[in-house]
């Protein structure tokens, strides 16, 4: 699965798509693959403040809990509540229907400091190499 070029990526494997001052956040294909079957998602309520680098959600597979970190500062305007009944969407469509939250960004420009798709892809390749060493 390719990484959309219009998204930005974190080292913790979250993606963010900024349109104006609204950012949509999810976890990457690499992240869902590492997790395995997603069975549970805990999402913040609308209005929750997100602080860049701090955890705001958790995604659980059968075997483990993963904390999800905010790629940017902002305030939640909408959570993807459809995931409560269909958490597996994160596995099947991580960069689309598996989005977690939409946030009103405090400083939309700060998103630009994150990795672009090419940089993230190189980063993930490096991770894969480490794992198979």
């Amino acid at each position, binding site marked *: 699965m390719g990484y959309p070029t219009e998204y930005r990526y974190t080292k913790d494997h979250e993606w963010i798509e900024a349109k104006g001052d609204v950012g949509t956040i999810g*976890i990457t294909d690499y992240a869902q693959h*590492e997790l*395995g079957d997603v069975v549970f998602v805990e999402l913040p309520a609308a209005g929750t403040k997100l602080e860049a680098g701090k955890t705001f959600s958790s*995604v659980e597979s059968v*075997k483990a*809990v*993963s*904390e*999800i970190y905010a790629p940017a500062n902002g305030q939640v305007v909408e959570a993807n509540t459809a995931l409560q009944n269909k958490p597996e969407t994160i596995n099947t469509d991580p960069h689309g229907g598996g989005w977690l939250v939409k946030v009103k960004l405090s400083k939309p420009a700060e998103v630009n400091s994150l990795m672009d798709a090419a940089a993230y892809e190189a980063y993930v390749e490096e991770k894969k190499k480490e794992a*198979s060493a």
Partner: protein
Amino acid sequence: MESVNSPANSTPRKTPLNALHRRLGAKMVNFGGWDMPVEYPSSGGLMAEHKAVRSGVGLFDVSHMGDIRIHTGKKPGGALEAVQHLTMNDASKLAIGQAQYSAMLYPKGTFVDDVIVHRLGEDDYLLVINAGTREKDVTWVKQNTAKFDCVVEDLSDAYTQLAIQGPRGVDSLRKLTDANLDVVKNYWFTHGTVCGLKNMLIARTGYTGEDGFEIYVPSDVATSERVWNAVIEAGKEFGIVPCGLGARNTLRLESKMALYGHEISEAINVWEAGLERYCKMEKGDFTGRAALERARTAGVQRMLVGLEMMERGIAREGYRCMNESGEVIGVVTSGSPSPTLGKNIALAYVPPAMSELGTPVYVEIRSQRCKAQVVATPFYKRLRKASAN
């Protein structure tokens, strides 16, 4: 994204099938100091592996388990005496070719490890032990059998151990062996030719709550890979898939089988763990017996119970349990979604007063209290055929 349960990074040991697992694209994890497959995306992942074992057949590499043979010294009888001293079940009841679930205890009645004791011959026993406790167990056995007339051998690295688990396990293995598997009952074993290898140990045992076999073959890479591939080929028509430790854990949890370091440990005694049916107090003295006698008189302070989550949330190891007024009353030892039942289940230690079926228990999940209730265990029990009893 960072895994809360991610394992410690040390230099892990490898089974002879390590390279094969990596070729299959397995996700590897450090388990008790071993680099082991946790799931195989090529099998469809943990859930698919779990379901294959419940409905068809799955293949596990469990070569990380250890094996200790205790056999006769100068005169017959010494090995049995040693095993009786070391373990809590009654090994004198074993026929040759029979195995039993048991445990080695510390003098205070808590667990060194749980083991399966196989009686190989007249005065000849094989103890199959856990991976994470191998060195500790071998040292323990050597120290505590010194005064008995017996020979102790650590055969842990001599075997590649494969678990062929599921209702179609027997049909898969049948194609590879001359042994008559139909006469091998649950917790019995035989020896036979497997994939042309003579005199291999074939045991009807496992850690999945399903019918199945564990076979022990020579541990060189070529033989190990050849047998693995032959089992996969033989099981193909029954939907066999390679299975990792992830499915092994959910399968054993549904069947309420203890995992060392979780439900049993050096801090938990036999009564608390609810393993009294494997502890034969009347067989004579054994290490831990006196302390267990005292503990029984004093009464247990906590008991292992099954929980089912009533509210959204997955209880995990180490999460605290509370009563309705919010007091901490216990702790979760293992918890997971149950792929078979479609519910979130857990095992937890709670006071006896909270152990009645239906008792509400609240599990603290990331500082939120989620309602659960005590339910009957095992969570899942297979329907047994007469032949597999």
